[in-house]
């Protein structure tokens, strides 16, 4: 472990048992699909079998007549208020321009279906089986249209158009041309022509990746009760209860004050549970029936009707001097948005060259609609696609220059003050420390096993800040109740509680953290963007400081001294001048009621000081030269996390991101037939890694403190999925001698790469 931080913490850096642990290992924790309430109806959703079609008519009469069916809804049931754009928080605090009609049409289609799996109608019935039977009785007449399934098809002249009203936007300027390209933007730095003129060697290559899914094990779900008092109460597994509330408000045209969202435990998200899918349909069905309605997606629906991440077409050109200095870099990147605009190409474009200090660069990005599910965030959205190209090009460059690939990266590495290609300059970052840790790691120092290939790569993710709220109430026994609004996908209750425990000098076991509903806590943005421990942890820090200040004041009033003469350390309030005057936080808590009443602390933050994170991988592979099958023999993940609050869960994030990256690299793909139907929409044929497909995943935590956070936290959730695909591709190239220009590296593709 590399650490630039020698602060002596009592709680941070320890590995306590998570507060929700007992519930989760005994099956008592209530996840969205586990929720039950009296009179519950079950909803199912009818989905399009066609990738691109006009809906001529929908006849629901037979379905409605079926015994046990309580209501049927279609796109016609959306409130009829909206034309044009509205603002909906996308959940990371960024307001995304969202055409309300598009949002609604994605959840219950309008006059067109834009992908196979596109929702058309919802049914509520006494049992899920009856609801499913009813779906078969809904008659939809389609005019089937030619599907547009790839970026190349979509951008071609005379391509079939998905949206008649869609014109290309260029950073606020409307081209006025109807197109499947929703957005084009550009970043420039220096003079790229001059940069390439100055180069001794040039690498240029095109890389393709296909759509992949986050693969959370728990399907999307939601239960809605539209109560007789007009209030809508929703229980669901979401990465952001306030996103659900605000999206429902927009979609259903009711004020946020009329909506209460209770987040249940959530079975994985990885970005995919930021958008909402079934909740508004359940709400419409509840409004019609007066009963609570629960909808849980099937696995097939999760694949076909939720939001995977984009496939991409990326061209990278790099020029370098013979000493390894990169003189110019050009990236052209187009990414699939799915049926509606909004691919992660923006982030991809900002990340592609972020690890390096490059004088002359140009990045063009294109957001392209295709007849596939509307993409959603997935762990560092866009950055893995970009890195798959860039980090392979770097290795190719290293090979041409006969340099060690880590040395080439160190030669060009971005550091504090480096101006990124998209403009801003970096503050303190740990790219160099990550590379040095890799270089010095036993894995890199070890000789390669005969016949194995070795690859390395690094990757960057920004991380984000945004709103978080936290309340703390002190109990008379000296424990505290901590309430917050960040749904806990991987132990964040505990990392947040550790912030408060550290400030107050109490054991983390004396903190009772709860994730509460939208009526009960201030606005909190999603669990996403690697922000939760950073921002909600910060809110807990501030709320605990509030409690600390009040505790000192209370002690001052008890002792009749000036509060400035007191301080509180390690859970003890004492006088700076009189050693007789001291009392533990616990003792103070027991006297609260007699000395002025309870103590509560609170904080709402929207912190600046976000610190980006770099991650790096070293991977050894073997390749069966007769079948092309790649086996991961050794895998190491290195990441700068700023400060590891709970190292076990930090390692867990690094290992989990690595495993997802390995799946993305080797086998995962949306395999579409030529009509745009996903042929592998099951966990049998969408091959996520099993325990038998992976080795132990070694981790090395680097701690380059983020000067923007009181404890130096950067965030750990995402950067770790960025380097695996290129690191593995580089390893396979090393083993086979062939360049890997497309994902996934299936056995057949690896074998073909030699042809």
């Amino acid at each position, binding site marked *: 472990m590399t650490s630039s931080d020698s602060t002596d913490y009592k709680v941070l850096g320890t590995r306590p048992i998570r507060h929700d642990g007992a519930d989760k290992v005994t099956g008592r924790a209530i996840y969205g699909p586990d929720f039950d309430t009296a009179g519950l109806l079950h909803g199912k959703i009818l989905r399009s079998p066609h990738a691109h079609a006009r809906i001529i008519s929908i006849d629901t009469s037979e379905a409605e007549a079926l015994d046990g069916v309580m209501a049927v809804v279609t796109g016609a049931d959306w409130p009829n208020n909206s034309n044009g754009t509205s603002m909906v928080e996308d959940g990371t605090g960024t307001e995304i321009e969202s055409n309300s009609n598009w949002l609604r049409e994605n959840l219950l289609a309008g006059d067109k279906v834009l992908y196979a799996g596109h929702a058309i109608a919802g049914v509520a019935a006494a049992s899920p089986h009856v609801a499913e039977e009813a779906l078969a009785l809904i008659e939809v007449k389609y005019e089937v249209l030619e599907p547009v399934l790839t970026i190349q098809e979509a951008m071609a002249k005379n391509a079939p158009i998905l949206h008649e009203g869609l014109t290309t936007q260029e950073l606020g300027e409307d081209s006025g041309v109807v197109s499947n390209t929703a957005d084009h933007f550009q970043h420039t730095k220096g003079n790229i022509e001059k940069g390439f003129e100055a180069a001794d060697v040039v690498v240029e290559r095109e890389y393709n990746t296909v759509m992949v899914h986050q693969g959370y094990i728990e399907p999307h779900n939601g239960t809605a009760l539209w109560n007789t008092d007009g209030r809508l109460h929703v229980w669901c597994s979401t990465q952001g209860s306030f996103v659900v509330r605000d999206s429902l408000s927009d979609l259903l045209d009711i004020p946020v004050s009329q909506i209460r969202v209770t987040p249940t435990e959530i079975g994985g998200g990885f970005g995919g549970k930021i958008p909402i899918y079934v909740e508004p349909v359940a709400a419409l069905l509840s409004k019609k029936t007066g009963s609570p309605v629960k909808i849980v997606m099937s696995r097939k629906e999760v694949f076909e009707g939720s939001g995977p991440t984009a496939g991409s077409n990326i061209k990278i050109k790099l020029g370098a001097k013979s000493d390894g200095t990169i003189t110019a870099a050009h990236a052209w990147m187009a990414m699939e948005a799915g049926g509606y605009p909004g691919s992660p190409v923006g982030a991809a474009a900002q990340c592609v060259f972020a690890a390096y200090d490059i004088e002359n660069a140009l990045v063009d990005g294109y957001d392209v609609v295709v007849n596939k599910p509307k993409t959603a965030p997935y762990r560092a959205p866009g950055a893995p696609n970009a890195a798959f190209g860039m980090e392979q090009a770097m290795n190719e460059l290293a090979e041409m220059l006969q340099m060690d690939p880590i040395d080439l990266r160190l030669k060009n590495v971005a550091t504090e003050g480096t101006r990124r290609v998209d403009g801003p300059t970096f503050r303190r970052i740990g790219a160099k420390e990550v590379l040095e840790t890799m270089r010095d790691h036993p894995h890199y120092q070890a000789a390669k096993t005969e016949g194995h290939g070795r690859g390395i790569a690094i990757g960057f993710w920004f991380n984000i800040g945004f*709103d978080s709220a936290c309340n703390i109430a002190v109990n008379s026994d000296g424990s505290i109740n901590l309430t917050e609004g960040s749904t806990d996908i991987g132990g964040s209750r505990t990392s947040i509680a550790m912030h408060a425990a550290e400030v107050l000098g109490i054991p983390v076991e004396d903190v009772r953290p709860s994730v509460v509903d939208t009526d009960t806590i201030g606005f909190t943005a999603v669990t996403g963007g690697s922000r939760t421990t950073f921002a909600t942890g910060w809110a807990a820090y501030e709320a605990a400081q509030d409690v600390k200040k009040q505790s000192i004041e209370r002690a001052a009033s008890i002792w009749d001294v000036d509060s400035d003469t007191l301080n509180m350390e390690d859970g003890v309030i004492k006088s700076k001048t009189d050693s007789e005057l001291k009392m533990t936080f616990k003792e103070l808590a027991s006297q609260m009621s007699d000395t002025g009443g309870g103590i509560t602390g609170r904080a709402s933050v929207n912190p600046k000081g976000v610190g980006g994170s770099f991650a790096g991988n070293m991977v050894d592979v073997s390749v069966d030269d007769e079948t092309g099958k790649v086996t991961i023999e050794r895998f190491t993940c290195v990441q700068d996390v700023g400060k590891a609050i709970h190292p076990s869960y930090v390692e867990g994030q690094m290992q989990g991101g690595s495993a997802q990256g390995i799946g993305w690299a080797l086998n995962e793909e949306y395999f579409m037939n030529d009509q745009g139907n996903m042929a592998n929409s099951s966990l049998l044929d969408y091959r996520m890694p099993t325990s038998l497909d992976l080795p132990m995943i070694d981790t090395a935590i680097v701690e380059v403190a983020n000067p923007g956070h009181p404890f130096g936290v950067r965030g750990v959730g995402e950067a770790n999925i960025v380097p695996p695909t290129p690191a593995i591709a580089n390893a396979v190239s090393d083993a086979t001698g062939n360049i890997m220009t497309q994902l996934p590296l299936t056995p057949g593709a690896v074998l073909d790469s030699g042809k």
Partner: protein
Amino acid sequence: MPIIFVPSLMQKLCNGEQKLLIEGTNLRQVIDNLDLQYTGFKDRLVEDGKIKPNISVAVDGEITPLGMIQKVDTNSEIHFLPAISGG
């Protein structure tokens, strides 16, 4: 004066200038003054008095959550970027 780094796709609004020094103590003032000097910028950046939702503004290397009320000082760098979101 704060310095605006003009995105390449907006440079035709200001005769190809890549950087502009524009007076102002917060983003609203800077954008108003920018638009006075080079008409069209405000239309591209602002909608209903707020930064357009698909655009992020970075001040001194950091995306600001404050939008038009973000304070800037005489040495501030201002960048306009496409909005991004995390997973």
